[in-house]
């Protein structure tokens, strides 16, 4: 069982107050695939939109695993939508992914609105498939993920315990404010720069706040179920993804070797001869066939993992929909309960 996986009975143990202040819970939102809206650029930039969409779902989980393995954090979850009340929210965009290199633009912001990271990370794939981290399913860019993990630890080390405790409290208060704005609307101040400051804290054992914590606990259970789906997705497509990445890496190497080969294969045939013309035509033909072969691999990859992605997306949408639907209901009920308790109901 991962740290993120809690059952209802263990909910209270999973709540933020039961852990060290430094062990913030991290939510990693599904990445932006970074696909240019201008379709005409896709071929030039070697962007395969459907594969980028898969990477956007797949790569956050690799980061999640890296962060969870450090044992430095609370629950680390992949979430389909940004959770604005997350203690630490990481969002990212796939800037480049071509088999040889991966570039991610990452933004990490805590619940108080403080920016921890806003940086581009890029990494090169290992030289060969055998050297990559295929067995661990980490897709060969482990150094990149390690660098992100390291930077997060550095960013955290700049904060004292008070600041970290504040983040946890602000996170819960932002959640409370979202769920029951009437009761919790004035606990925080939202500064013009987007940061949040605590005005006051609820009393210890405040029954309203306890209810909010319980609701959040239930939501976490559902979030963990969603996170589990990302884990399943990762387990199912990791080997195919690595194969795709390996194909692309080999393709990139092939292009380099091909360029060298073509340089050396210039025909001595006189200009205007059939041999010279055929050489020009064949060079172009080779180049195009190689590029078109790569598109065939992309389609093959998509065909292979497509059903898994569809199943996963449908289950995540179901779970997410359940949370959203109940969230509204909880919000309405809590507002009513709090109004009654405060004697405000007419």
């Amino acid at each position, binding site marked *: 069982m991962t740290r993120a996986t809690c059952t209802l009975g263990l909910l209270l143990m999973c709540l933020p107050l039961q852990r060290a202040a430094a062990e913030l819970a991290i939510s990693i939102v599904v990445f932006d695939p970074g696909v240019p809206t201008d379709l005409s*650029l896709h071929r*030039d930039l070697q962007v395969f939109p459907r594969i980028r969409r898969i990477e956007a779902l797949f790569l956050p989980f690799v980061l999640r695993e890296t962060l969870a393995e450090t044992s430095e954090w609370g629950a680390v979850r992949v979430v389909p939508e940004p959770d604005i009340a997350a203690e630490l929210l990481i969002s990212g965009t796939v800037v480049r992914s071509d088999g040889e290199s991966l570039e991610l633009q990452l933004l990490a912001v805590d619940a108080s609105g403080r920016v921890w990271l806003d940086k581009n990370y890029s990494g090169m794939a290992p030289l060969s498939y055998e050297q990559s981290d295929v067995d661990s399913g980490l897709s060969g860019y482990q150094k990149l993920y390690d660098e992100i993990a390291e930077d997060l630890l550095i960013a955290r080390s700049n904060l004292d315990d008070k600041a970290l405790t504040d983040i946890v409290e602000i996170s819960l208060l932002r959640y409370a404010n979202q769920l029951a704005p009437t009761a919790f609307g004035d606990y925080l101040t939202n500064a013009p720069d987007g940061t949040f400051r605590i005005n006051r804290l609820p009393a210890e054992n405040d029954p309203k706040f306890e209810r909010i914590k319980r609701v959040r606990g239930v939501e976490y259970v559902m979030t963990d179920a969603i996170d589990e789906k990302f884990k399943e997705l990762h387990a199912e497509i990791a080997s195919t993804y690595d*194969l795709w990445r390996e194909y692309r890496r080999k393709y990139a190497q092939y292009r380099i070797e091909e360029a060298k080969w073509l340089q050396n294969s210039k025909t001595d045939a006189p200009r205007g001869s*059939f041999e010279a013309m055929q050489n020009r035509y064949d*060079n172009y033909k080779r*180049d*195009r066939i190689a590029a078109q072969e790569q598109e*065939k691999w992309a389609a093959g990859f998509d065909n*292979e993992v497509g059903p898994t992605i569809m199943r996963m997306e449908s289950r995540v949408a179901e779970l997410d929909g359940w949370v959203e639907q109940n969230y509204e209901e909880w919000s309405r009920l809590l507002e009513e309960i709090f109004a009654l308790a405060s004697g405000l109901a007419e």
Partner: protein
Amino acid sequence: MLRITGMLVLGLLVAACSQQPALDFTARSYQGAMPADLSGSWERDYSRGDDVNGVLAGLFQQLNRKAAQRIPSDPRMGTAQATLSQREASSLVALARLAELITRPDILTISQNSYEISIARKDDFSMLCEFYDGVAKGTTSDYGAEVCGWDGDQLVSHLILPDGLIVIHRFTLSPNKKNMRVTTTVSSSTARVPFTLNRFYMRFEPPSSEFNCIETLSMKRVCSTGEIVP
């Protein structure tokens, strides 16, 4: 930016060759839907079309005639100068051989959507025509450039290769859409005239297989007698 650069390169390449009338550039943009739907499977109609040797012989005759007309009627000049030079003849034969080679595929599989036409040919690369918002986008590489356009309802593909070598394919559908003519013109800066070959194709329905197949990455082609959900 890449798109603009690509267009610019193509524009320059085409402009560089613009002295040859056969290379007049066709419309690079259109409005609304594509002017014609070429999609489908096409097989060569061997009962029609040009014979390479016949076209070549006709071209030689025509050029010799022209050469003869240019020679003033001076009896002191021999007849040898009234024919094509050996070099010109060789270049023309080379163009004919290349045209013959390029037009060899007997099956064309054309897929077309709202912005792209792909013409798959056996043992050759697939010709690709991309149009974004009705504007043609070319493909450029170190080895050449390719761009398409529409001339009325004819699709015209230009392939520009080094040494002034240019290949133009013109696809014309018959009024009943069951036949297609592909006119291939090969020209070179080393030859005075281009060489053109006409090939005809008939639309056909590929035989239906009892297997449904898809390409996969790890297992290559996967076939099943049942339905395969990609």
